[in-house]
């Protein structure tokens, strides 16, 4: 009986996915791409962040390059990375993404937050290569820029 129920549940899931199977695959690729974008942010933030913490020596050239990269990432047109139907409440995506449906239901709030991030990174790109104190002083505004979206539009991490 239990087994039968299990099979029935599987069939329901499969048929639900069947109709949108091709789309689901595309969406997963898109989600992978936007997560890669986040990794690129993190990689460049690591360069300036470790200097701010004093873990690596301050290098003006490296810092300026990383800050310029961060700005380039923010300026890149990433509209196609955020299609409708790619949030964690969409079918089959619960374990793939933490993007909340509010991204789409509260538009244009996300775009406004992204503009704030770009503005913060424009400033950061002008100060990061000056000296260590300027780099340190600029980190908070960059963090605020990232937080702008991550506070409202990303679900809490599930515990393993």
């Amino acid at each position, binding site marked *: 009986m239990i087994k039968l129920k299990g099979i029935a549940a599987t069939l329901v899931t499969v048929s639900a996915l069947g109709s949108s199977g091709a789309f689901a695959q595309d969406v997963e690729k898109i989600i992978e791409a936007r997560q890669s974008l986040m990794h690129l942010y993190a990689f460049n933030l690591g360069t300036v962040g470790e200097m701010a913490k004093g873990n690596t020596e301050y290098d003006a050239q490296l810092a300026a390059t990383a800050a310029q990269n961060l700005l380039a990432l923010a300026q890149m047109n990433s509209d196609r990375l955020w299609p409708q139907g790619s949030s964690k409440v969409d079918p089959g995506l619960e374990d793939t993404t933490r993007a909340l449906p509010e991204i789409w239901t509260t538009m244009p709030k996300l775009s406004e937050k992204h503009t704030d991030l770009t503005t913060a990174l424009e400033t950061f790109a002008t100060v990061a290569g000056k000296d260590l104190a300027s780099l340190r002083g600029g980190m908070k*505004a960059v*963090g605020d820029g990232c937080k702008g979206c*991550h506070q409202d539009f990303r679900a809490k991490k599930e515990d393993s």
Partner: protein
Amino acid sequence: MKLCFKLVALATAGAAAGLWMISAPQPAISADALASVPGDLQRGAEVFHIGGCASCHMPPDYEEPNTDTIPPLSGGKRFRTPFGTFVAPNITPDKATGIGTWSTSEFATALLKGVSPRGEHYYPAFPYTSYNRMTLQDVADLKAFIDTQPAVSRPNDRHELDFPFSLRRGLGLWKYLYSQPERVIDFGDADSELRRGQYLVEGPGHCGECHSPRNVFGATDYSRWLGGGANPQGDGSIPNISPHRSGLGDWSEADIAEYLSSGFTPDYDVVGSEMADVVENTARLAASDRKAIAAYLKAIPAVEASKTD
């Protein structure tokens, strides 16, 4: 037989009277005790930020403008817990709906004893279970600062609590059993940085209110201090921030201080959820205070993350 019955009745009455007395709100902090500690506005702002007052008392859906402005403290945020829903009150200096008529001793009694000017117990959703470790000086400074904030007229909403939690008097017993104004961790001889971190985390910062597990009566489990716990608002769990490998074991002091300033984790992910509001506050502290908090968090006993399900 009759005597026996009388004795039992007497004992029961005695016990009831005892419980009634224990549950009585504690006497107020006297004005005399505060006479020697005039409030300092600048230091009060620092206490305000480490105390995280704005995080709970700002209006619901308030948008942080990412500047140094202080949000209105008019309350209204709702906190759903297993005991019912608490609504943060108005703590602006408005005389009719806020705390504008409070004396400093009434303010101190609220923070340190969890007792209102009307002599009623507060629910520990208001974290006096940590604030009771604050110095009178910090309380007086905080009062001076809050007095300068704009008054907003907004009548308080009632908490929506389930019986028997709706009976405030019962909180007296709860306080008697669970209130612990002493230091949580005994470091013996500690340097001034560690002492400062201890004061900030255990007292005004009230980190343990969310980051420590609670028992079925909602009291902090001090044996698993800062070991993380269920989210009182029911959404996932709150991280372990003790130096265990399931907590901040891999974080350096510099990592913690940076996180409390810019919000970046050692992996350069960024703070989210409720903690984002907390970092908004800790970012405004002196760098030396963030360093002190980090030193404390690396010095406390490592406890394994509590199982929440």
